[in-house]
């Protein structure tokens, strides 16, 4: 049996298991912030606004290159990376420390987004158990 999970709880779970994520924001279809690790509301607003701009620019680039609908992106810089995953109208964006384990971060973000809509019951998909310590890969 599946039941909905609170966005804040999903975010708390994500930050607990992922040592690579620095800040995260979960945004709904209307652009409202469902949950974020950024304490200051104005900074969180600017963060989400910049992520939306990044997505718009990436979408434009995707069209130019003839790619299908954008599902996720990673922008890697020397000081850290920005990850964005879109699913069912919702979006999760995260910043990480430099040189993250890309696959792992994408997995954690997708899992977080999925868990908001549906939390696995007794026979559901097992959760990935990983302790928050250093470069767990």
């Amino acid at each position, binding site marked *: 049996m599946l039941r909905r999970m609170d966005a804040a709880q999903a975010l708390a779970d994500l930050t607990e298991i992922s040592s690579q994520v620095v800040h995260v924001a979960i945004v709904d279809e209307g652009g409202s912030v469902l949950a974020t690790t950024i304490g200051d509301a104005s900074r969180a607003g600017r963060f989400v606004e910049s992520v939306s701009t990044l997505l718009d620019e*990436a979408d434009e680039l995707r069209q130019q290159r003839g790619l299908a609908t954008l599902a996720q992106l990673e922008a890697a810089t*020397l000081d850290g990376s920005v990850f964005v995953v879109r699913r069912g109208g919702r979006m999760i964006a995260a910043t990480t420390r430099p040189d993250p384990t890309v696959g792992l971060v994408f997995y954690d973000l997708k899992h977080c987004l999925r868990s908001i809509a549906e939390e696995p019951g007794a026979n559901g998909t097992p959760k990935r158990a990983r302790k928050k310590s250093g470069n767990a890969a």
Partner: protein
Amino acid sequence: MPRKLVSALMLAIGSLAGSLVYRRRVARKVERVDLYAEDGSMASIAAGMPDAERLLTLARELVALAR
């Protein structure tokens, strides 16, 4: 100016220039934007390419904002 001071100054300038060149080279290797489409296709745009710069500028701002 004493010779030792000139040597130290030259060494400092050389080190600084070297580290700047190194940082730029590393940045070219590390900085990139990877776009993943729903059908599984992917495009990687490396730093230095005109398309990447705008996205990387935004990403740098986001990383700084989230610190």
